[in-house]
């Protein structure tokens, strides 16, 4: 039998080889701000465990390299990911001198690259398996549960990022909920304002170019500049409009962050609404009018359902973008995970930066998967129902 290579597998195997044998697996530091020392897999783990991990990685890389059954590829990558997740915790305990509360152990580039390579393999397998949208959400839930269990079990408590968490557990959840509120709240506001605005732009052609251009210009203002620009007007509102200050409107803080995120969200929502409505087949629209639908009936019965997947794509862009952008809100006292990122940068404590960055990335990633699945469900509903 001829041996055949898997195209993506070749790339993954090369990355894995570098990450497992050249790049450091973990970083050890005597305290949280001194430069770290690299540790390879064999240095970071007890010899037997380290050898076992290397063997698992090599075997999985070989499975990825050649054309192998999808189920085998899936199993191999899940085993490696699980082993990496468990053993990085072991490395933390192994590397930390007993009783030393200042020493910090964190995952290093090799670990992150291995995670990336095998996540890529899982994603490739899942794509090729052609999972239904619901199944994809299911996979996401299973992965989230697994990570949650690991966190609760305390197996990662020896890692630096969780030591930072342990010091800030209360503010972590407070900032987290602020972050989500900022991202979702500004999205909701953008949908409430943007949808009708998009419909209006679709109906009134003269309005369209003007509105879209203004939103385009807003989109090009750097976020920090926009926060700055909002300080003056919101400050004015807070001092001159009775009751505004009581509502929490101030020149700095949550209000300008919310307004900025809302403004950034408008363009994708309005633009996708316009594009979606313009994509409704002319003949369907003409037939709808010709059969005696009122404008309202046509909008809700024909145009809106047909444009919905495109509008939802805009909402997906906004949500992922907002989860990322909300990080900047911390700069002007708006709170969110960005608080840890900027504190970490200020203290040159990378672990603290990660404490803010990792949950942000995870949230954005989960939001993207869930909304992609929803978009696919709405777009293919008519096909699935009759399949």
């Amino acid at each position, binding site marked *: 039998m001829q041996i055949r290579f898997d195209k993506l597998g070749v790339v993954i195997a090369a990355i894995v080889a570098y990450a497992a044998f050249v790049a450091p697996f973990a970083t050890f530091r005597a305290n949280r701000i001194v430069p770290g020392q690299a540790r390879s897999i064999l240095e970071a783990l007890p010899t037997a465990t380290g050898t076992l991990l290397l063997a698992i990685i090599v075997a999985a890389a070989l499975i990825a390299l050649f054309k192998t059954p999808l189920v085998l590829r899936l199993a191999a990558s899940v085993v490696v990911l699980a082993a990496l997740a468990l053993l990085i915790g072991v490395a933390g305990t192994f590397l930390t001198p007993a009783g030393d509360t200042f020493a910090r152990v964190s995952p290093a580039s090799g670990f992150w690259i291995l995670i990336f390579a095998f996540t890529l393999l899982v994603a490739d397998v899942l794509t090729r398996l052609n999972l239904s949208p619901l199944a994809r959400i299911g996979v996401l839930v299973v992965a989230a549960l697994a990570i949650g269990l690991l966190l609760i079990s305390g197996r990662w408590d020896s890692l630096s990022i969780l030591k930072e968490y342990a010091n800030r557990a209360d503010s972590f959840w407070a900032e987290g909920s602020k972050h989500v509120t900022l991202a979702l709240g500004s999205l909701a506001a953008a949908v409430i304002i943007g949808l009708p605005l998009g419909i209006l732009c679709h109906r009134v052609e003269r309005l369209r170019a003007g509105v879209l251009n203004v939103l385009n210009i807003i989109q090009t203002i750097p976020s920090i500049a926009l926060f700055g620009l909002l300080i003056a007007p919101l400050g004015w509102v807070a001092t001159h409009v009775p009751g505004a200050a009581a509502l929490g409107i101030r020149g700095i803080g949550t209000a300008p962050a919310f307004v900025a995120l809302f403004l950034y969200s408008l363009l994708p929502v309005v633009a996708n609404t316009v594009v979606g409505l313009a994509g409704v*087949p002319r*003949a*369907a*629209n*003409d*037939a*709808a*009018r*010709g*059969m*005696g*639908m*009122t404008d309202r*009936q046509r909008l809700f019965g*024909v145009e809106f*359902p*047909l444009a919905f997947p495109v509008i939802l794509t805009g909402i997906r862009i906004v949500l992922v973008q907002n989860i990322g952008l909300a990080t900047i809100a911390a700069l002007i006292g708006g709170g969110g995970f960005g608080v840890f990122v900027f504190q970490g940068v200020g203290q040159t404590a990378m672990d603290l930066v990660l404490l803010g960055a990792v949950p942000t990335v995870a949230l954005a990633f989960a939001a993207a998967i869930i909304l992609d699945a929803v978009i696919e469900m709405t777009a293919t509903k*008519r*096909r699935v*129902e*009759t399949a």
Partner: protein
Amino acid sequence: MIEIEGITKRYDATTVVDDVSMVIEPRTVCVIVGTSGSGKTTLLRMINRLVEPTAGVIKFDGADNSSLPGYELRRSIGYAIQGHGLFPHRTVAQNIATVPVLLGWDKARIKARVDELMTLYQLDPEAFGPRYPHELSGGQQQRVGVARALAAEPNVLLMDEPFGALDPIIRNKAQEDLLAIQKRFGTTIILVTHDMEEAVHMGDKIAVMDAGKLVQYAKPAEILANPASDFVETLVGASERPFRLLSLGRVRDAVENGSAEGEAIPGDASQRDALAELLWSGRPALPVKGADGKPLGRVTVDGLVKRAARPA
């Protein structure tokens, strides 16, 4: 009866439809024919007020069509267009039920009507009702489009190039089906086309439009025999004229006494088909049979050629 009186549509300086007056008799098929830009579609769309006229009146059985809100008027008039305009997110059954639902019919009545129309159009309601338009062939989609237009039992059906997107064989079948259904329900049909062949085949009367003006409005035979202008003559097609004239007549009307050899041609076939068969087989005469299979006589090349000559 539909009376169109001095109807005009202007967009800024351009006059698209210019002072058109005509009367369409009930239970007939009126075909509006013209080149693109002749204003034929605009004229059609003013009948159900998808386009509001600049001047003039259109009356249905004496009632001005502007006395109702536009959407209510349109619910009472069937409307079918080229490319069918089916709603891609609704099933075939839901598509057909569009106007009955707008009119608030009860569920049982809607279902009965949808099933009736689908059966009429040879689409099994069980199999095709729950399907989506993109799962149907072009011919099936077109039939659903017409069924949808007829769903609320309108007295008047407007059609804008309804067969434009079909291949010739399916188009023929669709035209025959439409004529059969028109006879069955007694619907008044106003059909827009640029195809003179279709106009002659379908129309009880043909209205020829050119540059917004109604150039001639007459029975097909009259249009073929006495075109009102050079434009109409070009549209009719000088080389096609005799054959189009023959296509208007049935073989049974050209039967002569006597007998002939070979396979008999049905009396319902068009005289053009009979002549084509004679020319192709190189025979001077063909036997003719009735619907019951009994011989009626024969048709001859000579007889048909005389009938193809310009009427006096």
